[in-house]
C-alpha cells in the first residue's frame, strides 16, 4: 500500500492528521484549478477549502479504482461551477479586473522587467479563460495545467470522451478567434 492509499484509509476512519497530509499534497492543484476557474484569489481560496471539506465528508463514496486526484479535482471543478452560477444569479461580472497575483511574483531574483512580463502573461491567460463558458474552461484547465488525457478529463467531469473532444475543439476555436481579434501572436511574441 502506497503512502497516499494509507492516508486515505486512515482518513476514512476519521483520522484528521492523515487527511491533513492529503490536503498538503493536493493544495496546489486544487487551489490552482479554483483560481483558474474563478479568476479571483479570495474566492479561489474559499472554494478550494470547501472542496477539501466536501471531499472529507464524502470520503466513504470514493472508489479506490479511480485516481484520488481525479476525484478531488472533479469535486473542486463542480464546486467552482456552482459558485459561478450563484455569482451569475447575483449579477456579478466574472470579468472584474484582477488583483495582481503574488504567486506570479514569487521569483525574488527576477528582474522587475521579468516580473512585469509574468504579470502581463497571467492577466492575459485569465482574460482568455474568462471568455470561455465554464464547461469549456474546465476542460481547457484540466488539459493544460494538469496535462490530463481526454479520457481523464471525461472521468473527472463525468462525461464522455467525445463530449470532451468536442468541448476542447470548440474552446480552442473560440480562443483562436478571440486571440486573432486581440492580435495575440504579437502580444505573446513580445512577452516571450
Amino acid at each position: 500500500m502506497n503512502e497516499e492509499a494509507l492516508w486515505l484509509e486512515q482518513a476514512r476512519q476519521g483520522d484528521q492528521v492523515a487527511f491533513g497530509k492529503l490536503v498538503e499534497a493536493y493544495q496546489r492543484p486544487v487551489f490552482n484549478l479554483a483560481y483558474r476557474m474563478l479568476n479571483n484569489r479570495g474566492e479561489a481560496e474559499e472554494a478550494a477549502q470547501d472542496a477539501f471539506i466536501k471531499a472529507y465528508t464524502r470520503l466513504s463514496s470514493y472508489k479506490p479504482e479511480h485516481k484520488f486526484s481525479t476525484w478531488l479535482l472533479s469535486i473542486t471543478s463542480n464546486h467552482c461551477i456552482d459558485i459561478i452560477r450563484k455569482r451569475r444569479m447575483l449579477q456579478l461580472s466574472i470579468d472584474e479586473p484582477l488583483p495582481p497575483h503574488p504567486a506570479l511574483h514569487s521569483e525574488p531574483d527576477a528582474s522587475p522587467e521579468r516580473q512585469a512580463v509574468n504579470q502581463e502573461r497571467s492577466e492575459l491567460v485569465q482574460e482568455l479563460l474568462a471568455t470561455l463558458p465554464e464547461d469549456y474552461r474546465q476542460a481547457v484547465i484540466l488539459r493544460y495545467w494538469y496535462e490530463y488525457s481526454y479520457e481523464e478529463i471525461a472521468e473527472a467531469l463525468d462525461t464522455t470522451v467525445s463530449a470532451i473532444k468536442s468541448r476542447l475543439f470548440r474552446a480552442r476555436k473560440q480562443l483562436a478567434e478571440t486571440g486573432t481579434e486581440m492580435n495575440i501572436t504579437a502580444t505573446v511574441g513580445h512577452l516571450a
Partner: protein
Amino acid sequence: MDHEQSYALMMDALDGVISNTEQETLNQHLLICNDCRYEWESLQAIDFLFMEAPMVEPPPNFVQTTMAQLPNYRLRVWTASFAYLFLLLGGLIPALGMGFFSWQLVTQPVLVGVIGQTAGELLRIGQILFNAFFQIMGSTGDLLGQYPAIPGMLFIMLGSIALWISIYERAFSPQWAFAPINNNRRSR
C-alpha cells in the same frame, strides 16, 4: 479542404497526434488560406501561453485554515449516540411502565369477565343496528316500487324549497338591498 477539416488537423497537431501526411496537408492548406493561417498562429500562441503559465500557489497558511474547518466526526458520532440513547430511554421507560400496569389490570379475573361482557354487548348492539338498517332500506325500496310518484314529489318539494331560499336571500339580504352604485364603472 474546408475550414472545419483544417481545424480538426490543427487540434491533432496541438495534441501531438497528427501523422506526417496530415501535417503536410495542413501545411499546404495554411499556405493558401489566410484565415486558417491567422487562427493557427493564434492557436499556437495561446497553446504556448497556457503551457507556460505556472500553477498558482495557495496562501502559506492554507492547510491550517482548511484543517480548522473540518467537521469533527468523532465528536459528532458521540453527540448523536448520546442524543439517540436519551430519546430511546425517554420513550422506553414510560412505555415499559404502562405495559407493566396494563398487565397487572388485565390479569385480574373480575376485570377479564367485565371486559368480555362489555365486548359481547357491543357486538350485539352492532348486530341490531345492522339489521335495522337493512330493514329500513328494504321497506323503503318496497314503498318506492308501489308508489313511483313519491320520488318525483320529493324532487319537486326540494326544488321549491331551494328556490324560495334563494328568493329570500336576494330580497332580504342587507348586502343586496344597500349595494352602492359603482360610480367608477359608470364614469368609464
